[in-house]
């Protein structure tokens, strides 16, 4: 494992907001839980506590955005898109206002169970006109997303990570909206498989892809942080090249998220590749540790190997020990030759 960082968003937000007096932070009684306590202490005049009242918070954000402020709304993802979807749609998205929504606890990253797990947020937010949707997968994504979205004139929904976050991508290579990251490319020639992963699934995918590459498979793996707009030409190009098919892997239901976006892209381009969508298979999850849930619901490295074996029609003989042995260092995508 590479570097593990702590409270990345908490620190980054304070740094980022220092020279942006129009940036205001909103919290609905989850100030510590969404890492905006440092912002509150640093800029108390720009911090607003709403109590447990998300509907008011989202429409309030629309109001302040109309006056030239940049509201950064922080709460758990479920309480943005489930609780206040109408307010998000009509007070923020319809007038295309620059409100930034940070949805914490994406998918199975919380033991809180169905009430706290945002498992269909990408599907809902992606279908909302004017909305940009991002999913952070590591510390570099988290600490560069604010800059990356700064010039977007309309609303942005970001799936955010908190607490201890690994650095999978070089700190000097910021998240770029609309551009996936190359994680692994075949040493030569076309790929057997194209793997597109997002969020916390990327760390698992890195593990599985290294192990499969050690078995001689040619794999093109990309980390996708922008789920809308979904127009990165590198994704379609990688899928076209993949001889045996495409696998998507996301911490979200398989309906409406990354897998659906890839399917739409392939179909619209007339690319008839087999597509395997790894994600929550149309089910609510229960409460347990992240590692346990990823295993139980088939979102981990072992699941990617199983699904790849199915696509390839053969066994790769990769065990848990092989996966555990994979050491993950930060990836320098610019240092690699693009396989395309």
């Amino acid at each position, binding site marked *: 494992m590479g570097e593990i960082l702590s409270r990345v968003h908490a620190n980054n937000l304070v740094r980022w907001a220092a020279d942006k007096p129009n940036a205001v932070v909103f919290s609905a*009684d*989850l*100030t*510590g*839980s969404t890492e905006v306590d440092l912002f509150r202490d640093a800029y108390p005049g720009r911090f607003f*506590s*709403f*109590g*447990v*009242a*998300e*509907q*008011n918070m989202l429409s309030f954000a629309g109001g302040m955005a109309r006056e030239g402020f940049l509201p950064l709304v922080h709460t758990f993802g*479920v*309480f943005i898109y*489930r*609780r206040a979807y109408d307010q998000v749609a009509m007070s923020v998205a319809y007038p295309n206002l620059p409100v930034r929504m940070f949805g914490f606890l994406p998918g199975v990253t919380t*033991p*809180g*169970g*169905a*009430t*706290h797990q945002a498992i269909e947020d990408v599907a809902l937010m992606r279908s909302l006109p004017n909305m940009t949707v991002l999913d952070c997968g590591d510390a570099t994504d988290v600490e560069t997303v604010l800059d990356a979205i700064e010039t977007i004139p309309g609303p942005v929904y970001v799936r955010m990570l908190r607490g201890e976050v690994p650095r999978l991508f070089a700190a000097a290579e910021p998240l770029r909206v609309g551009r996936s990251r190359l994680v692994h490319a075949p040493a030569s020639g076309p790929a057997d498989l194209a793997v597109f992963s997002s969020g916390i699934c990327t760390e698992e995918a890195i593990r599985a892809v290294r192990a499969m590459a050690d078995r001689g498979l040619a794999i093109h793996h990309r980390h996708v942080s922008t789920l809308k707009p979904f127009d990165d030409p590198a994704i379609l190009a990688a899928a076209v090249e993949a001889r045996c098919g495409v696998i998507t892997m996301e911490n979200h239901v398989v309906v409406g998220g990354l897998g659906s976006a890839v399917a739409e892209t392939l179909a619209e381009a007339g690319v008839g590749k087999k597509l395997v969508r790894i994600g929550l298979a149309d089910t609510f999850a229960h*409460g*347990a540790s992240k590692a*346990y849930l990823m295993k139980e619901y088939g979102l981990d490295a072992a699941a990617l190997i199983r699904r790849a074996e199915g696509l390839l029609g053969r066994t790769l003989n990769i065990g848990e020990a092989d996966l555990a042995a994979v050491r993950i260092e930060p990836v320098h995508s610019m240092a690699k030759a693009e396989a395309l």
Partner: protein
Amino acid sequence: MARDERIAELEEKARRIRAHVVRIAGMSDCHTGGSLSIADMLAGLYFHTLRVDPGLPGWEGRDYFILSKGHCVPALDAALAMRGFFPEDALTTHLQLDSIISGHACARVTPGIDVSTGSLGHGLSIGVGLALGVRMDGAANRVFVMIGDGELQEGSNWEAAMAGAHHKLEGLVAIVDRNMYQTGPTEEMMALEPLADKWRAFGWATRVIDGHDMAQIVETLDALPFEKGRPSAIVSRTEKGHGVSMSIHQHMNRFDEAQTATMLAELGQGGGEGGRN
């Protein structure tokens, strides 16, 4: 049984509920503060007021209890186990695989829980619908909904409050656990006062009580419904974390072994087998 003995017995039930909450916090993260503040009211409800059958959790004549502040389920689990809905041993499996108790109230796994909660601001609306359905069925089940004070910041509660009074749901009871804290002080975060006046203005027959005074709790529950043709609201003034010094005003605790023992001793519930009902 003399009334004083009855009160003393209920107070002991409340202490045992608190001891179970402390033990749960000794095993895993636990929303202690809001669980401890409702312990007395839960003792009054489950051992004095609610018509339930632990052997038949789905008995159709039962009173419904909805814990809208679903994160405080450790206290409810303790009350249900002590009332006989499931063995008290199950309380040692909080957040473990295949446990029948859960981090948020879960009707899918826990006998005696009718409504899964944990997303705030749902319970009262569900309670209004249930109470109206009960009346349309010509049945007599009562519906009790316990709501956190911070939770009342969710606007949905006030839509439900309007509807409950509009439909004159005499069998509906809202109990507000007025412990003054959410993750921080409620009146600083988004003030609710004058809270009892709000309920009265919404058409609810409202009483304000000391939620740690068992005699008042029993007297109040015995007086339900407070007025003919109106739903009843009890603003139960409590202290977040009451009875456990390390949990006062705390939203969550995780106790180590020594802390657990000290907190159990505070409750007069020390010892490995102590607190078994």
